[in-house]
């Protein structure tokens, strides 16, 4: 139905850029959904920028796809990925906060590794 695809630099300025790209779905999605998407996109792109060990030339790819029932977001980078925090107490620490918020807001989310790392999540619209 609607898609957003963006290639970003591994640089902090990519975080607002990714977040503002969510606004392209204004009119397609309700404001409350857009608000949560902005937050989750900000968190996942921040993780890539901070933790992926990327050079500035390694791109971060953001893809948002919308169908009748849900919104799916994928953020892919060339980094080696990370261990998922296992204990709730670990999730409250430092960078775990971002994933904690994603976990609270998303219906489903996960990480796939292969060539690079993709963090994805889905929410109902």
């Amino acid at each position, binding site marked *: 139905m609607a898609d957003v695809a963006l290639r970003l630099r591994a640089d902090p300025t990519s*975080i*607002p850029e990714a977040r503002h790209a969510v606004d392209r779905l204004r009119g397609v999605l309700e404001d409350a959904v857009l608000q949560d998407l902005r*937050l989750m996109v900000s968190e996942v792109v921040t993780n890539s920028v901070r933790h992926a060990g990327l050079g500035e030339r390694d791109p971060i790819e953001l893809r948002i796809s919308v169908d009748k029932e849900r919104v799916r977001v994928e953020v892919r980078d060339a980094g080696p990925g990370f261990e998922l925090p296992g204990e709730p107490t670990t999730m409250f620490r430092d960078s775990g906060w971002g994933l904690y918020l994603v976990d609270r807001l998303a219906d489903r989310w996960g990480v796939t590794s292969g060539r690079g790392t993709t963090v994805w999540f889905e929410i109902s619209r």
Partner: protein
Amino acid sequence: MSGFSITSEIRGGVAMVVMAGEFDLVAAPDADRHLTEVECQGVSEVVLDLRALEFLDSTGLRVILAADSRARREGRRLALVPGPEPVHRVFRIALLDRRLEFVGPPEEDTHG
């Protein structure tokens, strides 16, 4: 593209800190530096006014939590004037709306 700004005014040992715009990783270093500088002025209370914030994520939240930890450790009061819904929602989701002290807007504003 609204960026971020942080300004403060100190009066009678109370620092009123006004944050505006989008508080994320881009803003975090400035915000953190500004807050630590304000704390060095020997204030007994820091009030963070979040009403002009348009966005907050966990990176901004961590800067605020760090200021709260320093305040508790150093015996200072840290209070927050809540921001608009997208900003306050982050505190609620993180279950921090009760751990941090939220207060009403400063009086001078309510008298116009």
